[in-house]
């Protein structure tokens, strides 16, 4: 999907639809099968598997403590798939463009820039984690649970140091508030079809399907 405005709006709408009902989640899953390049998921398979395992754990706890775990697992797994699609399609500068398009050169620019920085931090943390694992391999250390604490602290420390550097850089360059940007977007016909389908799915998710079937029993 080329247009980031439609991509983000579709992801928001689909996440809501998947979270609201089980039949909504099923429809979102179908949407994901039809409109996204599913093979891209293979590049982030480790992240997807670890997220799904985490959801599975919480779903099990929920199921054992009062039920509804399976429904929670299905809905959250579909949300993860949509999130991964959104994350893999994201390009640098898109949040800034959307921020300015939505809220203008001042507040919009600020919001967009914060979002861009967030995405950059996320990418840096992933790179740092790979780097720590390589360092441990070089040192002959085993990747184990107790190494998570120092690794986590090194990650937090690095992220804070980078944030401080960025803040200093902005201050040195005289940044105060807002900026000028002329956002441009490219919309393909397929983007509009996918976007409209996402809205239809949200409406479908809002329909109380179970009551509808009871009516015709």
């Amino acid at each position: 999907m080329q247009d980031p405005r439609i991509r983000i709006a579709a992801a928001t709408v689909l996440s809501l639809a998947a979270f609201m009902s089980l039949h909504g989640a099923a429809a979102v899953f179908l949407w994901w099968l039809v409109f996204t390049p599913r093979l891209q998921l293979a590049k982030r398979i480790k992240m997807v598997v670890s997220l799904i395992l985490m959801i599975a754990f919480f779903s099990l706890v929920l199921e054992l403590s009062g039920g509804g775990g399976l429904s929670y697992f299905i809905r959250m797994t579909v949300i993860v798939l949509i999130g991964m699609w959104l994350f893999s399609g994201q390009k640098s500068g898109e949040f800034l463009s959307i921020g300015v398009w939505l809220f203008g050169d001042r507040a919009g620019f600020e919001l967009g820039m914060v979002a861009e920085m967030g995405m950059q931090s996320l990418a840096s943390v992933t790179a740092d984690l790979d780097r720590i694992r390589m360092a441990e391999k070089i040192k002959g250390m085993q990747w184990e649970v107790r190494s998570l604490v120092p690794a986590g602290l090194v990650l937090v420390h690095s992220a804070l140091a980078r944030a401080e550097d960025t803040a200093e850089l902005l201050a040195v360059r005289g940044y105060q508030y807002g900026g000028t940007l002329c956002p441009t977007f490219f919309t393909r016909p397929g983007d509009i079809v996918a976007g409209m389908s996402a809205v239809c799915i949200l409406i479908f998710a809002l329909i109380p399907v179970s009551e509808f079937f009871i009516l015709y029993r």
Partner: protein
Amino acid sequence: MGVPMASITLNRVSAVRDRWSLSASGTFNEGVHLVSGEVGSGKSTLALMMAGLFPPSGGDIGKEGITTSMLSLPFPELHVTAISVAGECASWGVDPGEILDAIGLAGKKESSPLSMSRGELKRLHLACVLAKDYDLLLLDEPFSSLDCEEKVKLCKRIGQQSQGICVIFTHEQNILPRVTRIWEIVDGMLVDCGTPPDAFTHWHHVPPVITKLTALGARPDNISPDDFLEAVCRIQG
């Protein structure tokens, strides 16, 4: 029967990334090897491949008599895995007290390694790496972030290596240790320049001081500052 000599052989090893490529063939025997080349020529990629941390696109790497190996990455912060300096030393399997006393950082035992200056962290990192002997020691840009005094100390320490293979990947031109063999990466290819001083004649990245001394009729025997000094003394008689 003696201990087999360590060696690492690159057999048509290649790395390809977009329009950039690197190919390397040759055998690194025991001794100190220098691999020079411009920034971005592929020195770090070659180091990673030789350490087994980056799979080559083609070819193979054969190792003989190598049971222990170590790679020092160019940026010391890339090695940090602990939250204190003492912990960082321990993660290398070395005694923190001994190491920190030796490099004059005894007061920083409880500090965070990431709060140290790049120079301090590099000294700490190199001290930890060089505290042990390895059959294969790969040093990627070991002189970066060090002042002249520390570079000289590092050269001396490398010169004390009595066994094993030590490969230095660097674009440093002024302060270098005495080496057994010189290699360089030119136009995406690893070239064996040979042993010094004969290697100087076809070494593209030959340090300017060697060119000048050779022009004055006093070609140094090797590439260390002591060799340059000895050559200067020859001119002056």
